[in-house]
């Protein structure tokens, strides 16, 4: 699991980067550190316990990345490609995803709760045991995905497609849904109340 070592700068509530004393924002040459982190994450190796919070990432290709137990809380992802990636037990809580692509990825046991997700695609994705509590999703497509035991409690969903999904034990209690389609999905096995 990622280590939660507080940033050494007094008053900062963020966590320090791995093998560093400060968070990315307080690191010397933070731009260089960020570029080096992105380059290292983009390769095909397995990355574990990476802490990269409160960062803005735009037009990045993270397709085929392999991440385990990493912390990306409160990041902004704009036009980032996570397709065919393997993301296990990673935290993306309170993030902003805009025009991101998770198609064909395996993002099981992860946490996306509290995030705002716009115009993003999660088709043919393994999202079992994934926490989407309190998300605000617009114009998103989860079609053909396995959402077994996933949790969408208290979320706000507008123009979201769940066509031909596995929704067994998925939790949609307290959701606010507008133009949401569950066509060809086993929504009877999900929890709505």
């Amino acid at each position, binding site marked *: 699991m990622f280590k939660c070592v507080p940033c050494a700068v007094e008053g900062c509530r963020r966590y320090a980067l791995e093998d560093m004393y400060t968070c990315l924002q307080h690191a010397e040459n933070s731009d260089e550190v960020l570029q080096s982190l992105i380059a290292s994450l983009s390769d095909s190796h397995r990355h574990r316990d990476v802490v990269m919070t409160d960062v803005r990432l735009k037009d990045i290709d993270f397709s085929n990345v392999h991440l385990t137990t990493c912390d990306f809380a409160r990041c902004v992802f704009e036009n980032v490609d996570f397709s065919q990636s393997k993301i296990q037990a990673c*935290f993306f809580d309170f993030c902003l995803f805009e025009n991101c692509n998770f198609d064909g990825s395996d993002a099981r046991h992860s946490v996306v709760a509290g995030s705002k997700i716009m115009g993003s695609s999660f088709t043919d994705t393994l999202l079992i045991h994934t926490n989407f509590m309190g998300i605000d999703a617009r114009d998103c497509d989860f079609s053909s995905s396995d959402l077994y035991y996933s949790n969408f409690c208290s979320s706000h969903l507008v123009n979201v497609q769940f066509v031909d999904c596995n929704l067994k034990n998925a939790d949609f209690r307290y959701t606010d849904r507008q133009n949401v389609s569950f066509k060809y999905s086993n929504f009877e096995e999900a929890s709505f109340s």
Partner: protein
Amino acid sequence: MKVFFHFSLNEFSNTYLVGPEDGGDAILIDPGHIDLELIERIENNRFTIAHVLLTHRHPSHTAGLGTLVKIYDPIVYAGSPSMYESPVKEVRDRAILDLSGITVEAIQVPGHTIDSFVYKIGNALFTGDVLYAGRVGATTGVLEKALLLKGIKNRLLTLDERFLIFPGHGTISALKIEKMFNRELIDAMAIDDLAQLSHPSIMT
């Protein structure tokens, strides 16, 4: 420290494997079911199960204990030792355990069962059936529910909201997420706040 999540289809319960980075003595939390996948995970990470922590006595969290004891002979810790067939060391509220170099703090939160414990390891809370993502534990009556909610409020919600939550069932979460989006918890806390406001001793 490595934390592995294992899902059992038998009772839809979660088992957690916690161990050092480079293998060695590890902790297994709530062995609801021991299967080949879990054994392979233990062995592939060069772990030996030296300690087992039980959050409470229900079979979905303890049924694999017999198999595990035969293979690894771990020391088992739980709240009510007399409830088990094999030897179990009693855990007490606020106990700090040093399990092969991993520090564990035991927090008793009764309500779901009287022996329900939450284990705090590093920045993680292993909540068993006390608190899940989007739900609080099931109870058998109104008093038990009140006891559970009081325990969650006083013992868990007072912790740093960045603590990660690893529940006995369902998805992983964080304390901040539960504070913001767990409707059962929000409703209960609102009712509790109203009760506090209307109490004469507060008003005077």
